[in-house]
């Protein structure tokens, strides 16, 4: 008991701060990534050959751009786009500076996950709605997104967990967070206790998120 109190006295504040930083980075970049990724996923599905907005050019360009970004490992992307990050948010360090690369890393991933979720929707239902004279934008929300919402939730859970992993590298540009704490103190300064505790915290976080995602997805699924 004493040992725990001692540890908390020494590291409690840092751990708390790092956890908050991780939540901030994940929360903000997830929100922005969904705002960009979901429409991109919808666009990917709709511009496919034979679909409502069949457009070879848009589909191919989008496909290639997403593949290119997804080919670059996050740690490289982080440095590769430094000038762009500085241009967008005025700085390339701190939580603010790490949001841009996190979004660029996650949004295309979410777009892909959304694409595969939306593609699962029965073509027949979309057709039934077309046959009733329903507008395409209504079909997108009331059929495509609605019917795949369970898969969307599962996809977002996967994306969020990937995002938590990516934030660990954010420390390299001063973004902080749990991963950074484990690396700086646990690895560089041989404070293995800190490393263990952060790893355990990350495990709990990921487990909790996955369970929550599974639960929510199961609740939304009606078949």
């Amino acid at each position, binding site marked *: 008991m004493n040992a725990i109190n001692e540890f908390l006295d020494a590291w409690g504040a840092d751990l708390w701060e790092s956890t908050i930083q991780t939540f901030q980075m994940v929360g903000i970049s997830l929100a922005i990534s969904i705002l960009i990724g979901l429409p991109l996923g919808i666009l990917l599905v709709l511009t496919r050959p034979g679909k409502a907005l069949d457009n070879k050019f848009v589909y191919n360009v989008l496909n290639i751009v997403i593949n290119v970004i997804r080919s670059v490992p996050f740690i490289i992307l982080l440095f590769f786009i430094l000038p762009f990050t500085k241009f967008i948010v005025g700085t390339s360090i701190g939580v603010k500076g790490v949001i841009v690369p996190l979004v660029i890393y996650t949004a295309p991933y979410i777009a892909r996950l959304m694409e595969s979720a939306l593609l699962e929707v029965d073509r027949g239902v979309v057709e*039934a709605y077309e*046959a*009733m*004279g329903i*507008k395409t934008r209504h079909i997108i929300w009331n*059929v495509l997104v*609605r019917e795949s919402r*369970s898969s969307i939730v599962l996809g977002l859970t996967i994306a969020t967990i990937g995002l938590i992993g990516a934030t660990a590298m954010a420390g390299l540009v001063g973004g902080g967070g749990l991963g950074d704490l484990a690396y700086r103190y646990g690895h560089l300064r041989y404070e293995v206790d800190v490393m263990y505790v952060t790893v355990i915290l990350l495990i709990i976080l990921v487990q909790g998120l996955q369970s929550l995602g599974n639960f929510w997805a199961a609740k939304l699924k*009606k*078949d």
Partner: protein
Amino acid sequence: MLELKNITKTFTGKQGSIHALKDVSLSVNQGEIYGVIGYSGAGKSTLIRCVNLLEKPDSGSVKVNGVDLTTLTPGKLREARSHIGMIFQGFNLLKTATVYDNIAIPLKLTGLDKKEVKSRVNKYLEIVGLSEKQNAYPAELSGGQKQRVAIARALSHEPEVLLSDEATSALDPDTTEAILDLLLKINKELGITILLITHEMNVIQRICDCVAVMENGEIIEEGRTKDIFTSPQHSTTKRFVNSLFSHDIPDDLLEELSESGQVATLSFFGESSGDPALALVTKKYDIFPNILSGNITRLKDEAFGQLLVHFKGDTAEINKAIQFLQEKQVHVEGVTLNERHQRIS
């Protein structure tokens, strides 16, 4: 009411092009139930999807109530489509929505106010007999119930025409009967014209006023259901009719019987099915009819019977007897070995 003229449709795939529809014309009158029957790949599904332009024909015109849909702007086409109901083999309901919402959501999206939506959902759920299931999800329903929801959804837009794309093909025989009864009721009580496609002859037999037989993207035979049933011309049509009334006798028996007379199928329709025509024949002519098999059924709302009879006796007498029967409105068709073999191939 519904008029398709010179519709052609070609699908171009990796294996070359397929002429799904070759110059198909078809017209359905107000209040009719019109059935299109064919084997899979005959083009019937493409045909029905051309009616509301889910499939755009390469050429030809699609007129619904005199308006050519192929010339409409996307907005006007949506408006026209809302007056054409459609039901499908796969039901195509939202899995994530209750029975009530499955009907209510499309109504809301077409701009009806909440009160009107509610009254329509209740009205049409009542008609299809599913009022007590309105809070169930499709996964909790049987196939027949799902199709009822789909029918209610289609009817709730108060269409003039209902298109049925193999609506009973995924259902068991009892459920098929119940859904066919419902379609008949809709046709009679709401006066909705129905165009349906099917590969099951009993669907045609039970509810259709008119029938078209399709093969290889063409309509090969078309007419009133009773005419098609009593005297099918094309071999495919005969095959469909035979799928309902199978009078298969073994080849060797047929050969044996043919030596001593003539084997023939007699079709009785409406009033003629009540007449003892066959009994009269034995009195008038020197022949011995021997009934090999027979059945009687109902074509929509008239009786239709068929007998497979062996006429034993002199050829001249048999011919006279057959002529007499034909005068009595009985349709007679001879059965020979050759024909049977043709049918099998």
